[in-house]
């Protein structure tokens, strides 16, 4: 390079280098001067003024104490309070201030009731939350106990009585998966809060939403922590308050849920496992969402009892899972109305197209059996839904082909997350050659075989959807093609300013099905409840409704083998499904029910749907359940404020 430069430039280059070296010297001197300045400042503070600052540090007795905000309430669509706070006393131990934890607890046990489970819970808390300042040994003390301890407080160094707010779910286990629960802030939560810059606002807060709406709306519910300047004595106890910045309560969150409907639905399930989702078709609002078995969120409130926790976690029925959004099931015959609409919309079938159903469909030398031996004879589209002909849909699936089916089913949200405001939603599987290519590794598994399309038509094969997707599909079908994003929270209210934020209704996808097609399917589904597979469950109903039964196989049957319920272990019995809407004209509710291992759809799931619709449309309360009147609930609400 230098050879290309002229001598003048070479000289320039050299001059620049010299200048650079001079400036490095200048920089070095500047650094030295600056550091000497710092050293002088340190010397001033740490030697000259040391006595002053040492005294200040010793007098540093003004402690900043957080003032906790009230957590926002959860209300249902009718304003019924479903999660609230109440104040209670807890007895807390400061582990760093006591010599022997065991001895302190033994001494406390002389004064207040301390059960072995309280000790177990305390040990668990101690192990989980390293270096916590104080941990509760007993919560929800009676007034008498609190008074007793207060009188003997001097005997217990490192133990304090604290007034704290507790979360309470007045309806117990009803809707537990939607409401969720609170839990103690653990190390992972702490790290997340720090990353999000929220740790200051959570100073003094012990609990945080761990599941359900309590978790997904944590930011709304928590509120803003206030601060109090408190003068403290040498032991760190407060003497007097110097100033106070009030906390601001969290926002109240109003759900779209109808808690009374939710209760009826849960009672209709009884002890059976399964899920139910009810949606308002005109808005996408979730009216009820059941997942059974459920749990009591009140048990989590003051640090869960290890025994109950083990019970929940060890239970093979997985009560903590929200089956309505995370469980995936083959839809079985409930898939047929959607297939029928697909056939009409794509022009593959017309209203009056008929087939002959001999009881099986033959393809590639293999016989796909109908659930009715001998078949249903001559079947048109209407009858195919009412009697639930398998043969009809084997043939239809084969005629349509997998690509057309997959493309059309996307309109209902099958195989896609709905975006509901709850954690843990499953995607489900809308089978297609692309899906198979992604799902499997080996080339021979990745290929889509035409034979696989056949059983897709009756909702079997790779089909698997969440109950939410099924209900959403039902709602989308009856409203003519608008798939709303399921809405769980209707509005958020600031209790202090009265400011109200309405959560917008969002549309996931919108298509227009031909109204005469939609009407046809609705009429066929009404036929199911009048003269078909749902007729027994809906006998004598005082409103019009449409439905479709479904039965989903849990274990595969070999060709020619017959399903015999008596011989199959309970857990391998078929799942019972039912989808429904009512009334026939401008439906107000669309729902999907699944009862795990419940057998035929008509037997277990359809009667549950009937109970729910009876209550929703007629206000008919199932036998053995007394519903509180709105006045009772209003009185209760007042009491908790």
């Amino acid at each position, binding site marked *: 390079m230098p050879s290309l430069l002229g001598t003048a430039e070479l000289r320039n280059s050299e001059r620049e280098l010299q200048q650079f*070296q001079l400036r*490095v010297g200048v920089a070095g001197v500047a650094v030295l001067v*600056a550091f000497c300045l710092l050293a002088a400042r340190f010397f001033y503070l740490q030697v000259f003024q040391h006595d002053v600052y040492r005294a200040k540090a010793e007098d540093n007795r003004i402690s*900043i104490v957080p003032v906790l905000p009230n957590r926002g309430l959860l209300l249902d669509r009718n304003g019924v309070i479903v999660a609230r706070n109440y104040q209670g006393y807890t007895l807390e131990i400061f582990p760093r201030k006591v010599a022997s934890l065991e001895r302190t607890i033994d001494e406390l046990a002389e004064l207040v009731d301390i059960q072995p489970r309280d000790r177990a819970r305390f040990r668990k808390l101690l192990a989980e939350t390293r270096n916590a300042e104080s941990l509760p040994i007993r919560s929800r003390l009676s007034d008498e106990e609190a008074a007793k301890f207060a009188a003997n407080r001097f005997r217990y160094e490192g133990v304090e009585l604290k007034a704290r707010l507790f979360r309470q779910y007045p309806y117990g286990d009803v809707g537990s998966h939607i409401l969720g629960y609170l839990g103690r802030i653990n190390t992972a939560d702490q790290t997340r809060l720090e990353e999000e810059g929220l740790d200051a606002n959570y100073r003094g807060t012990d609990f945080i939403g761990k599941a359900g709406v309590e978790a997904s709306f944590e930011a709304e519910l928590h509120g803003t922590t206030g601060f109090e300047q408190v003068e403290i004595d040498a032991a760190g106890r407060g003497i007097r308050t110097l100033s106070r910045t009030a906390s601001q309560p969290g926002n109240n969150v109003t759900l779209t849920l109808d808690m009374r409907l939710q209760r009826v639905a849960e009672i209709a399930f009884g002890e059976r496992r399964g899920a139910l989702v009810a949606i308002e078709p005109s808005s996408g609002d979730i009216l009820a969402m059941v997942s059974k078995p459920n749990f009591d969120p009140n048990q989590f409130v003051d640090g869960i009892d290890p025994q109950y926790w083990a019970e929940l976690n060890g239970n093979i029925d997985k009560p903590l899972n929200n089956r309505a959004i995370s469980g995936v099931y083959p839809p079985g015959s409930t898939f047929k109305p959607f297939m029928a609409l697909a056939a009409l919309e794509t022009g593959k079938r017309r209203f009056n197209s008929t087939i002959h159903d001999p009881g099986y469909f033959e393809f590639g030398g293999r016989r796909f059996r109908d659930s009715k031996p001998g078949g249903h004879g001559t079947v048109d589209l209407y009858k195919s839904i009412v009697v639930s002909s398998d043969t009809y849909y084997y043939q239809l699936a084969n005629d349509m082909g997998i690509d057309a089916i997959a493309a059309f089913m996307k309109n209902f949200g099958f195989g896609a997350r709905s975006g509901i405001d709850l954690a843990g939603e499953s995607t489900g599987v809308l089978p297609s050659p692309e899906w198979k290519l992604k799902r499997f590794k080996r080339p021979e598994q990745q290929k889509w075989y035409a034979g696989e399309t056949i059983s897709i038509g009756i909702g079997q094969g790779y089909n698997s959807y969440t109950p939410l997707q099924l209900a959403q599909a039902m709602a989308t079908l009856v409203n003519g093609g608008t798939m709303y994003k399921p809405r769980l929270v209707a509005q958020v209210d600031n209790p202090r300013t009265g400011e109200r934020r309405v959560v917008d209704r969002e549309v996931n996808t919108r298509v227009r099905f031909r109204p005469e097609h939609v009407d046809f399917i609705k009429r066929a589904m009404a036929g199911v409840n009048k003269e078909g597979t749902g007729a027994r469950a809906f006998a004598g109903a005082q409103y019009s409704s449409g439905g479709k039964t479904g039965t989903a196989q849990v274990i595969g049957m070999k060709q020619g083998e017959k399903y015999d319920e008596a011989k199959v272990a309970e857990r391998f019995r078929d799942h019972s499904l039912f989808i429904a809407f009512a009334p026939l004209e401008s439906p107000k509710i669309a729902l999907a029910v699944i009862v795990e291992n419940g057998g035929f759809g008509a037997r277990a799931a359809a009667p549950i749907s009937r109970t729910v619709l009876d209550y929703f449309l007629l206000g008919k309360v199932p036998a053995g359940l007394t519903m509180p009147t709105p006045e009772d609930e209003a009185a209760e609400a007042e009491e908790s404020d």
Partner: protein
Amino acid sequence: MAVLESRLPFRRVFARITEGIDPGLLIIMLSLSLLGLATLFSASYENPGRVVNQAVNLAVALAAMWLIAQLAPQTMMRFAVPAYIIGLCFLVAVALFGDVVNGARRWLHVGVTRFQPSEMMKLALPLMLAWYFHRKESTLNLRHFAVGALILLVPFGLIVRQPDLGTAALVGAAGFYVIFFAGISWKVLATVAGLGMAVLPLAWGFLHDYQRRRILTLLDPSTDPLGAGYHIIQSTIAVGSGGFSGKGWLNGTQAHLEFIPERHTDFIFAVFSEEFGLIGNLLLLILYSFLIARALMIANSAATVFARLLAGAIALMFFTYAFVNMGMVSGILPVVGVPLPFLSYGGTALLTLFIGAGMLMSVHRHRRLVQT
């Protein structure tokens, strides 16, 4: 014999690994980092997981340093323009769809993680400027310095707007050092400084309320004992009460009674100072002086304009971090978000520092062999 033979490949592997690593720089930085871990342990008794996290951060940063040290300055030069442009794009992206944390828009989501693009500019800007002045070697005139100033001002302005004055000051300083070392004339410098003084009252009007408050409280911390003033009062008490020899490791009352906010990040020096006293502080100053001196020496013997400008800027960047942070904690500079190099908790800052060190090592390895 067998033992000796089996050792040989080890030695070769060791030689390969240490190739290009400047032991002086590395020893100083590791000493500082270990002091940092010890202080962090004391500062985060409520969350000991942080010490482990920081150790992991340190390992990652060391690996990054090693990688950079293997590159030739010429290779780094090729990254200068892309790094600068990508950095600018990120800053624009932040302005458009960044996350708002504590009222400032600084974070950008990338896949699963999020990061502060302004951090990247701390190295990308000096790289870019060094590249630019390198290309104009020996023909430098005032116009080139004007272009240099523009290269500096665009990212600087974007970061000021976030708003993040601390980082903006650091990025601006890093850029300024390159321009200074490139040889901008003292006259121009004095003029710009004079003009700057003149518009200072104007700039005051553009500051956010909290920024003005921070400057005002520096002058009189007692005006705001609960907000920004609280930080200064408490950290000054921590430093002062440390005395000549400190209260001893893990014995700082100011830190452990939670009087010091941000005690594991920006105010970790208060914890250090309280527990190790004046002796500790002087040791820290000496370590930083050695680090900066070593870096300036490397700059002095760099082979190309690019290399010497980059090395000089990095050397003074170390200085700026240390000076601003210690000055802020001891109450002679306003509170801005500047971490104490190698001691404050946080992976990104550590990564930037070690990558900077890696660049220094690369410059040193390809130094001028004949002194002129």
